[in-house]
C-alpha cells in the first residue's frame, strides 16, 4: 500500500500537531508505567515516611507466595475459558445472522447492545441473576438438583465470572466476525457447494480458514480483555472470592495495593502482568505474520 506523505514546510509544526497525543500518552500511560516499575523495586514503611530501594525482593516474595501462584492459575483458567466461550458463541451467532437475509440488521443491532453496558453493571446484572437468595438462575437450577451458591463454592464463582465476562465480550467479537464473514466472497461458498461440500464442510474448509485473520485478531483482543478489562465484573460479582477462587491477577493487583496497601508487591504484580501481555502480544503477532496468509 502506498502511504500518503505530507511535507511540512516548518520543522516545528508536525511536533506541535503531535503534542496533544504525545502529552496524553506520556502523562497517562508512560509516566504511570514508569512509576509502577519504580515502586516495584521499593518498600514503604507502614506509616509512609520513607521508602527503601530493595532490588528484586518484591518479585522474589511474589513468586514464593502460594496465593500469587494460585492467582496465576485462576487467571489462566479464566482467560482461556472466557476467550474460548466468547469467541465460539459469537462465531456461532455471526454465522447464524449471516444466513438470515431480511432481519440481518435487526439481529446485528440487538446483539451489539451488551457491549454498551458498563462492566460493573454487567457484574451486577449477573450477580442478581445468580444471587443464591433472590436470583432466578439458582431457583431454576435447584429444579435440576443443583444447589448453586457462588458465595461458598469456588467453582460456581469461577463459572459465574466467566459467563459474565464472556457475555459482555460476545458483542464485540460478533461484530468483527460478521464483518469478516461478509468479506468472504459468496461465490467461494457457491463454488464449494457445486464442488460437493455440505454446509459444515464448506464452513470448516473454506469460510473458517478465510476468517483466520479476524479470528487471530480477536484471540489477542480477547485474552487481553480477559486479563485486564474484567476488573469491574470481578469486583461487582465476587470481589475475588470465595477463598481467592476468582482472584485473578488484575484483581489481586488492586486488592493487594489498594485494600492491603502493599504498594511494592502490587507494583511488582502489575509489572509482571505488563510483561505477560507484551510477551503474549509479541508471540501472537509473530505467529500471525507467519501463519495467516493466503
Amino acid at each position, binding site marked *: 500500500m502506498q502511504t500518503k506523505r505530507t511535507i511540512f514546510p516548518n520543522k516545528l509544526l508536525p511536533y506541535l500537531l503531535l503534542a496533544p497525543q504525545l502529552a496524553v500518552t506520556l502523562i497517562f500511560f508512560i509516566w504511570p508505567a514508569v512509576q509502577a516499575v519504580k515502586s516495584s523495586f521499593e518498600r514503604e514503611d507502614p506509616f509512609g515516611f520513607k521508602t527503601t530501594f530493595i532490588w528484586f525482593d518484591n518479585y522474589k516474595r511474589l513468586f514464593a507466595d502460594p496465593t500469587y501462584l494460585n492467582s496465576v492459575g485462576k487467571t489462566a483458567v479464566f482467560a482461556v475459558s472466557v476467550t474460548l466461550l466468547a469467541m465460539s458463541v459469537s462465531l456461532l451467532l455471526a454465522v447464524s445472522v449471516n444466513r438470515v437475509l431480511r432481519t440481518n440488521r435487526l439481529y446485528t443491532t440487538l446483539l451489539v447492545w451488551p457491549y454498551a453496558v458498563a462492566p460493573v453493571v454487567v457484574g451486577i446484572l449477573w450477580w442478581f441473576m445468580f444471587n443464591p437468595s433472590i436470583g432466578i438462575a439458582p431457583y431454576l437450577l435447584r429444579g435440576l438438583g443443583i444447589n448453586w451458591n457462588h458465595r461458598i463454592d469456588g467453582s460456581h464463582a469461577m463459572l459465574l465470572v466467566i459467563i459474565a465476562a464472556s457475555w459482555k465480550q460476545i458483542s464485540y467479537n460478533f461484530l468483527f466476525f460478521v464483518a469478516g464473514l461478509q468479506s468472504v466472497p459468496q461465490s467461494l461458498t457457491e463454488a464449494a457447494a*457445486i464442488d*460437493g*461440500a*455440505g454446509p459444515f464442510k464448506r464452513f470448516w*474448509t473454506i469460510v473458517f480458514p*478465510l476468517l483466520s485473520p479476524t479470528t487471530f485478531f480477536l484471540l489477542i483482543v480477547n485474552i487481553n480483555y480477559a486479563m485486564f478489562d474484567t476488573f469491574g465484573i470481578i469486583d461487582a460479582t465476587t470481589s475475588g472470592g470465595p477463598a481467592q477462587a476468582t482472584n485473578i491477577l488484575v484483581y489481586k493487583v488492586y486488592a493487594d495495593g489498594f485494600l492491603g496497601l502493599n504498594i511494592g508487591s502490587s507494583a511488582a504484580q502489575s509489572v509482571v502482568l505488563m510483561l505477560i501481555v507484551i510477551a503474549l502480544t509479541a508471540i501472537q503477532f509473530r505467529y500471525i505474520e507467519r501463519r495467516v496468509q493466503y
Partner: protein
Amino acid sequence: MATINLVDLKKNYGSVPAVKGINLSVKDGELIVLVGPSGCGKSTLLRMVAGLESVTSGRIEIAGRDVVKAEPAERDIAMVFQNYALYPHMTVRQNLEYGLKNRGTPREEIDRRVKEAADILEIGPMLDRKPRQLSGGQRQRVAMGRAIVREPAAFLFDEPLSNLDAKLRVQMRVEIRKLQRRLKTTSLYVTHDQLEAMTLADRLVVMNNGLVEQLGTPTEVYDRPATLFVAGFIGSPPMNLLSLESIAGAPGFEGLNLPDGTDVIGIRPDQLVLDQPTGQNLALAASVELLEPIGGESHLHVRLTGSNQAVILSVPGRPDIAEGAAVTLYARPADLHPFNRESGRRTDTAVANP
C-alpha cells in the same frame, strides 16, 4: 455427456419477475451461449441450472433427470465463475482436488485427473502455487481446470472472460472453444459480449427482459434477426433501423415489394455500399458526418437527406471522403430486413431470402 432441458422455467424475486418462462433444450455435447444486455435474466437462468438460485416454477432436466429440488452438488455440473472463485488459501492442486476429495474419489484417480487437466491447460508448473501468485489468465485456466477434473455432465460458464484484458480474452475464447470441442461436454455459456457469443456458440440464445428473443445458430441470428431487439443487439456496428417514411421517396423503393405491416427497415452497415451494384437497388441520398478509420475498414456516419436519420455503414479501406460531402447509399432488396415496430417482429416469413 448429457442433455439439458429447461421447461417453462420462471423466477420471481418477490413480485419482480426475472425469468419469465424459458424453454430450451441443449443437445448432448452442444455449446449454447446465452447472450443479452445486463439484467435480462441470463445469469439468473444459469444460476438456476446450477442450483444456486431457487426456481419459482418450471422444470430443469439434466441428463433426463429433474433436478429442480436437487442440491448443486447432486446435479453433476461444474461452473466457472466470473471472478473465478478459486479458494485463496489452497494451492492450485488443492483447488483442483477439492471437488474430487469431497466426492471420495480414490487417490490414484484424483492424481490422474489432476495431471490430465494440468496437461490440457498447461498449468502443470503452477500446481503448487497459491491463486494470488497467478496472473488473470492463469487463474482463468485453473478455474477451467477445476471444472474439467470433475468430468461433469455439463459445464456452466458465467461470463468467464469478462475479467480479462481484451487480448487475453480473445485467446482464452479460442481455448475454451477448442477445449469444449475436444471434451464434447454439454455447455451453457453466459455472456453480454456479442462477439464472444457469435464465435463460441453452436447455438445462440438472445435474451431480453427474462424472455428468449431468438434461438438459432450464430449465422441464422445474424442473417435473419427475428426481432427488432435482436437486430439492434447482434452485430457491430449495430444494424441501421430506418422508419419506412424516411426511405419512402427513395429511388428503387417502389420495386421493393415489402410484406404487409412493415414500418421499419433494417440494413446491416456492411450491406450498404457507395458504388452502385448491378440489378435493382434502393438508393438513399445522404451527407457524410464523420469517417472513422478502424484499420482494414472504416465506419462512415451519414445522415439521410430529408429525414435526417443517422445511418452507419462500414466501407472497405480508407475512402477519401470529406465530411459534409453528399453520397448515395445503395442496398440490395434481398439485404433489407422488414420489421413491424408495434410487435417488434419480422414481417416476412421465416424462410430465408436467396
